[in-house]
């Protein structure tokens, strides 16, 4: 039983990590609290669902198509809507993304209706040592972890990744060194949006999706980033898996109705005791 609980927690936790990593990256580099993040996840999920249903392709490919589309979308949103305000106080950009989210979310309710939609995939499940593992969930977990790992690797080893880190550390200095900061901002926002779409694609294989979930996703992203530490990829990973396990055991110890409360309660505790998060450091990576 305990093994099953732990596995359940890690399966959902990996999805949470993927959900939060884009949010965390955008905050870390652009210092923007992107309220649209939840809606980006939902939009990515819808692209996956529609591509899978209408073109009959595998959800994995559909999710990757979703990632591509959303990268471009995120890039354009940053370049033409957010960029002018990116150096403004955080409250201004917060208001901007909040307003854009209202527009985007209501447009999605109009377009997709509030009725939940889901993929009817039945890959079944396997049992290892008495622990049942759903293939769809396992696949979603692998997709989420691979993309998160890839992002981490790219940030450390590619030229663009180093430029992003440089802008995150000091955008004035980065500009002096010849980095095109605006472009880095737009690409980072695009990557964050792409990661949201990846999380959405993974979610679509295991959850029914409705535009109304965007608030739930955004709430989770907040909690995870506070738990793990805002602005870092490992932080999102640790935070996500920690939240998955916490909710999992919270449901057993306190009853299922308290499982979401446990996450928020711990968030408050972490904010008081260790404001930089479980693996976060003061300052930059």
């Amino acid at each position, binding site marked *: 039983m305990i093994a099953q609980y732990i596995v359940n927690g890690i399966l959902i936790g990996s999805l949470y990590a993927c959900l939060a990593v884009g949010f965390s990256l955008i905050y870390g580099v652009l210092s923007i609290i992107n309220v649209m993040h939840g809606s980006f996840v939902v939009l990515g999920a819808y692209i996956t669902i529609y591509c899978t249903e209408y073109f009959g392709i595998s959800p994995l490919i559909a999710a990757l198509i979703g990632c591509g589309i959303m990268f471009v979308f995120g890039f354009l949103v940053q370049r033409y809507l957010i960029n002018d305000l990116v150096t403004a106080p955080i409250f201004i950009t*917060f208001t901007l993304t909040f307003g854009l989210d209202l527009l985007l979310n209501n447009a999605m309710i109009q377009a997709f209706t509030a009725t939940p939609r889901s993929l009817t995939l039945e890959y079944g499940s396997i049992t290892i040592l008495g622990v049942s593992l759903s293939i769809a969930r396992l696949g979603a977990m692998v997709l989420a972890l691979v993309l998160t790992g890839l992002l981490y690797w790219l940030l450390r080893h590619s030229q663009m990744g180093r430029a992003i880190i440089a802008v995150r550390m000091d955008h004035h200095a980065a500009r002096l060194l010849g980095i095109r900061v605006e472009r880095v901002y737009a690409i980072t926002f695009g990557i964050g949006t792409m990661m949201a779409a990846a999380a959405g694609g993974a979610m679509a294989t295991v959850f029914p999706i409705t535009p109304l979930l965007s608030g739930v996703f955004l709430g989770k992203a907040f909690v995870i980033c506070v738990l793990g530490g805002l602005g870092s990829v490992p932080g999102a990973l640790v935070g996500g898996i920690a939240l998955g396990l916490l909710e999992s*055991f919270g449901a057993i110890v306190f009853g299922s109705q308290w499982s979401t409360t446990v996450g928020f309660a711990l968030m408050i505790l972490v904010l008081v005791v260790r404001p930089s998060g479980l693996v976060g450091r003061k300052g930059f990576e």
Partner: protein
Amino acid sequence: MFGQFFKFALQTFAGGLLFLSSTVLTQAANTIRIGAPLSLTGSLADEGSKEQQGLDMCVDAVNAKGGVKVGTEMRKLEAIKYDYQSETSRAVQIVQRLLTVDKVDFLFAPYGSGDTKATAVLAERYNIPMIATSAASEAVYDQKGKNLFGILFPNNAMVQTEVEFYKARVPQAKKVAVFALNSLFPKAIAAALRDTAAKGGFQVVFDGLYSQGTMDFSNVLTQIKAANPDWLYATGYIQELMVIRRQMANLGMKIPIVTMTAGAAYPEFAQNLGPLANNVTTNAWWHPSATYKDSYVFGDAQQYTKTFRDKYKKEPTYLEASATAGCEVLAQSVEHAGSVDADAVRKQLSTRQFDTFYGPIKFGPSGQNAINSPMILQIQDGKYMVLDPQAVKTGELKVGVGG
């Protein structure tokens, strides 16, 4: 959280703008005005839009035949609708506004038992009849008011029928697990089922609650699986019930009877789950296969279903039907009273029996429909079959969910 607060503040502002624009547009002369707070956005947006479609069905049908005969003149129906964003506090504000600014003649209640109860006090204070089309919990009608009228018959009648039905069909089933959403109606009907089942000889092996927005049920389901129930009774709205059914499959759960209340009665449940929905049973206050006659509009239930299908390209559920019936009951009462005076109409509502496509409606002393006609449905190969009542039965119970 700060973000939540901010979101709320802006939503309130946006809602305010919506108010201003809609009142200017909705002042038409000499209509019978029904105020309808609807949850068109937010967590109950799906249910809210169903309710709106049901209401529109009635308004359009009645107006198409010339309107409601009030004394010697014909007056059209007009629905004054506002979106309350699935938030109870906004529902209360909107009902207040409908009563004081729009000065509507009659009211519809917002969606569900909780919000209905919260707003019914206003109907009572302003002495305006309010029709609740989606509140089935008895606790909504215990405020000793005289203005709240509920179309759905009580939860208890529903669970009574269910317990007797399964007990008779599956006598070897002894253990029941109850899992409910922590909200007024899902919790109330689950509690009623638990008590009725215990009295009926079932052993309650699991009794738990979950909160809205829960994304992962695997651990609770692991617990339920360990309890090895013969009957799982899960309540909630469509989103969570779909996740529960999927995760049951992930964990390889096999249970003879799985009943999912409320959400599973909507066709989207079966469409989205595909084969996983098979053999899940649910219940309904009404179903398109009903055979009730209606002399006021529509003719009968079949005709209603056909009209609905032509208009919205989908099947109506009890939720749309009950909203249509609620508005129809109001129209008939106005006609019999010969005026829109609240006291005269209330007298008709509380004394008369209404024969509608939805079934006979007669409001009892508490204001809730006292005529019970519970239906038990089962999804078989993606289709909803009626198992009970026997008079309209379209299929036999198939035992075994998940294998």
